[in-house]
C-alpha cells in the first residue's frame, strides 16, 4: 500500500467497527477527497457517516466538537494545511479545551486530518508546515507519519484517542512510498518516536517527508564514514524526550531536519530539550536544518526552499566535524 491507501484502510476499519465514527469535509464524501484519500468510503458506509460539508473550515471543526460532545468520534478532513487557519478558534478554544472546561464531563475524541508540506508544485497556501503552532497549544496532540505502515497504525490510535488529535499527512510522500501493510487492525501509540537506523556519530531527528530526504543524505554520509542515528519523531506533541535524549547521550551530536519555517519551530523545541536533558553530552551545537523564515515559494522557485539531501549532508558533515 501507499500512504493514501493505508490511511483509507485505517478509516475503513474504524468506520466498520465503530458506528460512532463519522467522516466529513470539503469534497471528502462523494468524490473521496481531492487526494482521493477517502475514496469509496461513502459508498461503503452511506451518506450519513461519510459526507461532504459546506465550504467552511470553522464550521467543519466546530460541528465536530459538538458531535464529539454528543458521543460520536468525528474525523474531519481539511483540504490543506494552509486552510486550517479559519478553524483555529474552534481548534484552540474548543477542540483543545472542552475536556478541561467541563472538568472531564465532556471530551472531544476527534481527529483533524490534513495534508501538509511542500514539494508538490502547488499553489500558494498549499505547501505549509505548521506543526509547531499546534504543538504549542495545550490540549492538542499532534502526530505525523512517515510511512504507509505508520500512517495506518497512528491514524487508528488517533481515532481511538479520547483527546483531539491533529493528524498531519505529508502529502509529498502520499504515493511515493509503497510498503507491505497488513490489512488487519493494529495501532501505534501516540507519543513514541522510533529509531529507524542506529548510528554513532550523530543523531538526526526528522519526521514526515523529511525522513526520506535524510535517508538519501545518509547514503552520502556513509561514503564519508559518518554513522548516523536516525529518529523518526512521529509525534510532535507529546514529544518523546526519552528516545531523543538516549540517542544524544550516545552520539553527542544532534541535528533536526524539518520543513517548517525555522524560527519558533519544532527544531527549536528539540534543541531546548537536548539542552535541558543532555547538556553535558553535547559535543557540538545542535543544528537546525529547517525552512527559511519566508513564505514557501511557488513551484518555479520552490527548489530553493526545499530541503535537499545535499543540504542535509552539508550540515551533517559540518556538525560532525565541529
Amino acid at each position, binding site marked *: 500500500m501507499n500512504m493514501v491507501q493505508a490511511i483509507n484502510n485505517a478509516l475503513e476499519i474504524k468506520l466498520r467497527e465503530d458506528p460512532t465514527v463519522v467522516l466529513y469535509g470539503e469534497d471528502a464524501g462523494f468524490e473521496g477527497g481531492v487526494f482521493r484519500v477517502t475514496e469509496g468510503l461513502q459508498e461503503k458506509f452511506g451518506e450519513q457517516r461519510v459526507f461532504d460539508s459546506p465550504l*467552511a473550515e*470553522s464550521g467543519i471543526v466546530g*460541528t465536530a466538537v*459538538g*458531535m464529539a460532545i*454528543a458521543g460520536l468520534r468525528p474525523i474531519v478532513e481539511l483540504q490543506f494545511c494552509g486552510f486550517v487557519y479559519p478553524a483555529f478558534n474552534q481548534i484552540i478554544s*474548543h477542540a483543545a479545551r472542552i475536556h478541561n472546561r467541563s472538568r472531564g464531563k465532556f*471530551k472531544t475524541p476527534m481527529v483533524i486530518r490534513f495534508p501538509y508540506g511542500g514539494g508538490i508544485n502547488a499553489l500558494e497556501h498549499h505547501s505549509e508546515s505548521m506543526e509547531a503552532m499546534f504543538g504549542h497549544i495545550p490540549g492538542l496532540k499532534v502526530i505525523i507519519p512517515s510511512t504507509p505502515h505508520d500512517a495506518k497504525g497512528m491514524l487508528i490510535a488517533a481515532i481511538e*484517542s479520547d483527546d483531539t488529535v491533529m493528524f498531519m499527512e505529508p502529502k509529498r510522500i502520499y504515493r511515493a512510498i509503497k510498503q507491505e501493510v497488513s490489512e488487519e487492525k493494529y495501532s501505534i501509540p501516540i*507519543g513514541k518516536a522510533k529509531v529507524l537506523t542506529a548510528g554513532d556519530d550523530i543523531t538526526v531527528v526528522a519526521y514526515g517527508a523529511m525522513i526520506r530526504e535524510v535517508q538519501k543524505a545518509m547514503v552520502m554520509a556513509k561514503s564519508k564514514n559518518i554513522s548516523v542515528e536516525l529518529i523518526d519523531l512521529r509525534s510532535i506533541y507529546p514529544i518523546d524526550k526519552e528516545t531523543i535524549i538516549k540517542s544524544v547521550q550516545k552520539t553527542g551530536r544532534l541535528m533536526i531536519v524539518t520543513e517548517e519555517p525555522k524560527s519558533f519551530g519544532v527544531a527549536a523545541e528539540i534543541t531546548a530539550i537536548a539542552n535541558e536533558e543532555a547538556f553535558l553530552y553535547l559535543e557540538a551545537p545542535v543544528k537546525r536544518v529547517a525552512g527559511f523564515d519566508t513564505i514557501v515559494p511557488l513551484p518555479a522557485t520552490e527548489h530553493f526552499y526545499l530541503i535537499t539531501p545535499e543540504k542535509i549532508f552539508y550540515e551533517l558533515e559540518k556538525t560532525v566535524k565541529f
Partner: protein
Amino acid sequence: MFKEFNPAEDKILRVIDNEGQLINKKWMPQLADEQIQKAYNDMLFARVADTMAVSYQRQGRMFTYPPNLGQEAISGALGNIMTEEDWLVPAFRELGAWLAKGATLKDIFLYFKGNEEGNAFRNVKKLLPMAVPIASQLLHAVGIGYAIKLRNEKDIVYTVVGDGGTSEGDFHEALNFAAVWKVPVIFVVQNNQFAISVPFSKQTASVNVAVKSLAYGMPGIKVDGNDYFAMYSALDYSRNYASEGKGPVLIEALTYRKGAHTTSDDPTKYRTKEEEDFWGLTDPLTRLNKFLKAKKLITDTEEQTLIEQYKKEVDRSFEEAENYPPTVLDDVFKYTYVDIPEDLKIQQMEHEKFLKWKEAQK
C-alpha cells in the same frame, strides 16, 4: 406562525402588552395557571439571584459577572420548554436557562468565583459549559444536532447567542450547516440591543436579526423577548417544527440588557436615561406580574414573601460556593488531556518540588 410574522416585513410576535393585557389571543399559549405561576416564580428567582450576584461581586466576593437583569422571560420560557432529554448550548449570560436546565446556583457562583469546577454542571446531563468566545458555541449545537439525527433520537438542541454574536463568521457557518443538514436546533438570539457598548445599529444594517434566517433557507421569527407568553409560544411552535424533522429555526428575542455588560462595565457611558426608561416599561417581570395580578394569581405580599425566601436560598447557595474546598495544583493539570502526557506529569512534579522548597523557606 412563521408566515404570519414575516421577518422581512419586520413583524413581531407579541402576546401581552406592557400592561400585561392580552393583545393576541391566537398565540396565547394554553397554560394552566400553575404553570404560569411557576414560570413567574422561576423568573423572579433568577432576578433575585442575579441582583445578589452583582452585589456579591461588588463586595469583592466574586470575579467579573455578566448580569441578566431584564432578560428573564427568554430563559424563563426556555426553561419551561426544554425537557431533560434536550440539550442546552449556552453563551455566558444565561443564568435563568442554566437554572431551568437544573444547574445549581452553587455551581454558577463557584464558576464566577473563578473555579472551573462550577462550569461542569455535573448534576445536569445535557448542559454544556458556558462558552466565552462569542458565537463559537453555535457550531457545537449543530454538531450535537447531527449526532441526534444520526442516532434517530428525539432530542432538541437549544442554543443561545447575543445580537453582537450575529456578526461573527461562526454564526453564519452554524446556521448554514444546520439548514443544509436539517438538524433539530433552535437558535435563540438574545437581541438585548448592545454588544458591550456597541448598539445594534452599528452591528448590522439588516432590519432585524430574524430576517437573517432567509440567508439559510430556514424559518425565522422576531419575538418580543420581554413577553413570556410570546417567547413560550414561539419556542413551542419551533420545537414542534424541529421535532417533525423540518430542520432548524432562528428566533430573535427582542429584549434589553438593563444592567451593565459585566460588573466591570459602566453603561451610563454609552446610553441615555431616556433609552433606559423607554425599555424599562417593557420589563418582563413587571408585565407578567401585572398579568398575574389581573387574574388574581399573585399579591404584593406573596411576592415579597417569595423574594425573602429566594434571598435566603441564594445566600445559602453562595455560602456553599464560598465553603467549597480551595483548588489544588492537580486542578491545573488534571483535565488538559484525557490521557495525560508524561511531560506534563513531570511539569507538575517539578512544580510540587518548588512549592516544597518555598514552604521550607518560611
